[in-house]
């Protein structure tokens, strides 16, 4: 029930693509009173996913959007069959009838397949859904050639996908050059050179005439209008889209001559209870196929619906769209922005820069006084895209030729407020500035969270950072990286100081580079840095004084002052005998026992003076420290893998053990988790780990920077089909680069998000050695592996260190009498303690 006990209003959304998903999320986020009950009907069997990233699906990426909350009803795999506008109901393919107060059509579009001979032959596909990609992948297996009809943005993506499936592939484009809707002729020509360099054939300027079958009755070649032909056992059509407007037609709503449901600037159809958003909508005479405008429409309708439910009115309208695009096609940067086709009739002048050696083409279009940027095209180097796009329609800060040569550093503070910074989510410079001020934001992830800027394609993130820095500086907030009052440096800077100057103690560091005597912030940081650089046992000499209590007692402090103990169980593999030892130890010391999420066993309730006795038993049975107490590698979880599993394709347990033994004890800015799955079913949940590995038929796929916890993040696919050695080399470098450069307590997920250049940059560093540091990183990891020694084994062998494990320095044998337990489900639990509020 909604506010005032009036019945809730029912919103029905037909379609579950990106636009529908955004609408529901935007509505839910702001409809705190629960005025709308939402039902989504989607014909695809899966819930909404990121269609923009479709091609990465074949590389193993998970495209699913986060699911809606439980209060949203989603019927997937069900097609909306009819709309009864008089009764306000939708009937689905399964006979379900859903009543609506408001109906939103987000039915998207269908790929356009021109009416050519042979279009229905086996082996002919379109490229829009995950199901399409599954079908293409299955069909391509064992075949050798492919062709894509359509050389637009999506067509080139499809060609890349075919090449990724091992097909020799070509692109057929009727226009004289590639990407004719975004690029001018010079840009198209430069892109063509890049694509041909990648081994793909480009046929532009000639229409195709028909598809011909081979002896097996399946498609075998594309025949061109000039009589030539191209061998292709797999053909993908990507020749434009047609709005899915059939439901609207059938219920008498006006549609455009060339398709598209006619809506006004508020996205409302001729029926005030029915709206249309996304690629099915004809708005201002245009159908938009980019995700940015589709999101904008979703936001407009969410705003209108919320106002309506609250009895008010909204003036939100769709204000047209910025069709600027930047993408990386097969490793080639391609971007267009503003009006890339402005000509002399608009009084436009062009400034062009071409570097045929490096494969760079840049063209800017400016007003005839050379002061205003109208648009442009970038191929081969699109680094200045974010800045240039922001200047479209505004006055340039310098002469246009200077802008071409990278003298384009936007100060951030100079950009006009109305400038759209993030075109995917339609976020202006002004709204970013306001969010920074209103919510006292101080870092880029917080700005992304708060404004959504930079959360889709990410190309505007460098610009967001500049805006943030400019705002903070203007507000007199020094963009301070100092970790605490004792050091004016960031963790990464401290790491370099310690490494380069060969510093081996906190005293040396704080006396030469800091002030005071440190605190609970900087001391553990320095302890971790010293440990990462290999300075012996963490309780050695002065290092002992730097450790947090967990590291100091090599156990995890619990709420009542007792500690928990986690022996290492590499890969989660354990013999019955060792399992029995753990059970006996827990029983003999009266410890609470629980299985962890990382396939280990945690023993709770140990007093300080019990820790050495407990560990003596464990070490004697062959166990070693699990480092559950450290900011270090915790566990490498695994599924049972190909040894036992009917579906496994690699030995995931063996690899997990190998990785866990390699990285055990490695101190890092935060804890590290990992997992290895033996096949694509992903039972080990590797994509939620700092580094996750999923077996393929040919080797291993490596995923980086995932996270569970408070802000879950799916790991990014970093590299595919790696050999064992390649896998380990990349992980070595990833970990060491992270350890060197991350902030204090920064997990790999937010570290990667804060890296300018993101995943591509990380690949350049780790795979291409763009910084020239790989040899150093490799050597650092080799030193770690060689120097590893079990911290508990070493501690037991050292009477001096053991003497610290007492509750009372003046009564070493005496247990702490303040610690007491109750019994719950046959095990101990801490007694409640009295605390001040």
């Amino acid at each position, binding site marked *: 029930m909604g506010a005032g006990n009036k019945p809730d209003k029912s919103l029905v959304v037909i379609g579950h693509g990106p636009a529908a998903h955004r609408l529901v999320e935007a509505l839910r986020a702001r409809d705190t009173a629960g005025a709308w009950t939402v039902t989504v009907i989607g014909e695809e069997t899966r819930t909404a996913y990121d269609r923009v990233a479709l091609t990465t699906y074949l590389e193993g990426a998970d495209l699913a959007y986060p699911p809606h909350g439980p209060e949203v009803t989603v019927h997937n795999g069900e097609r909306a069959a009819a709309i009864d506008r008089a009764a306000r109901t939708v009937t689905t393919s399964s006979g379900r009838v859903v009543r609506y107060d408001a109906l939103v059509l987000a039915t998207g579009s269908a790929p356009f397949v021109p009416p050519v001979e042979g279009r229905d032959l086996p082996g002919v596909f379109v490229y829009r859904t995950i199901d399409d990609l599954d079908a293409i992948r299955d069909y391509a297996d064992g075949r050798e050639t492919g062709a894509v009809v359509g050389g637009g943005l999506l067509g080139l993506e499809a060609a890349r996908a075919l090449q990724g499936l091992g097909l020799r592939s070509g692109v057929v484009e009727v226009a004289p050059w590639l990407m004719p809707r975004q690029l001018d002729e010079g840009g198209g020509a430069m892109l063509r050179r890049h694509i041909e360099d990648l081994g793909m054939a480009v046929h532009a300027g000639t229409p195709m005439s028909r598809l011909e079958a081979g002896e097996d009755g399946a498609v075998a070649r594309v025949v061109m209008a000039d009589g030539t032909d191209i061998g292709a056992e797999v053909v993908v059509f990507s020749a434009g889209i047609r709005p899915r407007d059939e439901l609207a037609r059938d219920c008498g709503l006006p549609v455009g001559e060339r398709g598209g449901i006619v809506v006004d600037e508020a996205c409302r159809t001729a029926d005030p209870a029915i709206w249309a958003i996304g690629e099915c909508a004809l708005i201002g005479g245009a159908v938009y196929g980019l995700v940015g405008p589709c999101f904008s429409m979703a936001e407009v309708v969410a705003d209108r619906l919320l106002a309506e439910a609250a009895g008010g009115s909204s003036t939100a309208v769709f204000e047209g769209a910025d069709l600027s695009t930047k993408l990386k096609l097969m490793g080639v940067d391609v971007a267009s922005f503003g009006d890339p086709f402005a000509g002399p009739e608009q009084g436009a002048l062009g400034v062009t820069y071409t570097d045929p050696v490096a494969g760079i083409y840049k063209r800017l279009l400016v007003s005839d006084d050379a002061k205003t940027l109208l648009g442009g095209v970038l191929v081969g180097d699109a680094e200045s895209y974010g800045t240039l796009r922001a200047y479209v329609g505004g006055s340039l800060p310098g002469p246009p030729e200077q802008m071409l040569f990278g003298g384009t550093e936007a100060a951030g503070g100079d950009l006009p407020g109305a400038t759209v910074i993030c075109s995917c989510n339609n976020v202006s410079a002004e709204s970013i500035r306001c969010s920074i001020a209103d919510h006292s934001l101080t870092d880029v992830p917080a700005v992304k969270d708060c404004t959504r800027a930079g959360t889709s394609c990410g190309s505007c993130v460098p610009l967001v950072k500049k805006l943030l820095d400019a705002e903070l500086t203007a507000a007199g907030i020094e963009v301070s990286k100092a970790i605490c009052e*004792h050091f004016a440096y960031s963790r990464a800077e401290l790491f370099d100081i310690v490494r380069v100057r060969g510093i081996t103690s906190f005293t040396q560091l704080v006396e030469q580079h800091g002030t*005071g005597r440190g*605190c*609970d912030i900087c001391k*553990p940081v320095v302890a971790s840095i010293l440990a990462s650089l290999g300075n012996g046992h963490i309780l050695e000499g002065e290092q002992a*004084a730097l450790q947090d209590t967990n590291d100091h007692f090599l156990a995890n402090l619990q709420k009542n002052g007792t500690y928990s103990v986690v022996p290492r169980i590499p890969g989660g593999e354990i013999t019955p005998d060792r399992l029995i030892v753990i059970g006996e130890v827990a029983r003999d010391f009266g410890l609470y026992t629980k299985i962890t999420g990382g396939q280990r066993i945690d023993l709770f309730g140990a007093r300080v003076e019990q820790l050495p006795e407990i560990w003596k038993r464990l070490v004697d049975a062959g166990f070693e420290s699990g480092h559950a107490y450290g900011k270090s590698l915790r566990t490498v979880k695994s599924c049972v893998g190909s040894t036992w599993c009917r579906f496994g394709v690699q030995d995931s347990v063996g690899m997990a053990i190998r990785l866990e033994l390699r990285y055990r004890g490695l101190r890092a800015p935060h804890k590290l988790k990992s997992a290895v799955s033996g096949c694509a079913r992903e039972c080990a949940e590797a994509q939620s780990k700092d580094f996750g590995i999923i077996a393929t038929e040919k080797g291993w796929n490596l995923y980086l920077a995932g996270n569970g916890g408070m802000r879950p993040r799916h790991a990014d696919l970093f590299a595919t089909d790696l050999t064992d050695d390649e896998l380990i080399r990349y992980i070595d470098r990833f970990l060491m680069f992270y350890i060197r450069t991350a902030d204090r307590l920064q997990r790999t997920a937010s570290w990667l998000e804060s890296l300018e250049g993101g995943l591509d940059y990380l690949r350049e560093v780790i795979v291409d050695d763009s910084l020239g540091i790989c040899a150093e990183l490799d050597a650092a990891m080799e030193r770690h592996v060689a120097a590893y020694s079990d911290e508990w084994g070493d501690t037991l062998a050292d009477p001096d260190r053991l003497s610290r494990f007492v509750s009372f*320095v003046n009564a070493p044998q005496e247990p702490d009498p303040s610690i007491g337990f109750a019994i719950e489900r046959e095990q101990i639990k801490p007694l409640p*303690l009295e605390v001040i509020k």
Partner: protein
Amino acid sequence: MTTTPEATLVRDAASPAREARWFDVCAYDDLIPERGACAMVEGTQVALFRAFDGALYALANLDPFSGAHVLSRGILGTRGGAPTVASPMYKQVFDLRTGTCLDDPRVAVPTHLIRRTAGDRVEVALSDGHGQ
């Protein structure tokens, strides 16, 4: 309360009249520089700290924010010029000289007297209301 390494007793202003009753708790060298330890004195848990400069401090071991007896296991340091310990549980910082919580000035933990003897022993005397 503080003593210098030369073991000059600074008397607690709040209890001037009564002669302090000292308890031997450990050798000075049993205390790790810049760390704490706990002593049981007449049924009271006393957190002992040996600061970087060698100075000794004693606070109650009970962390008022968690209710657990853990202050002796915190990390020592400085804030401004003040010597501090941070509770290992929820990281509130206390001034070692006064017991005042620097993150929440309404809260203070009791302080005790501590000294280093000529024989390099450490002795503690409980302040009023704690133990004897």
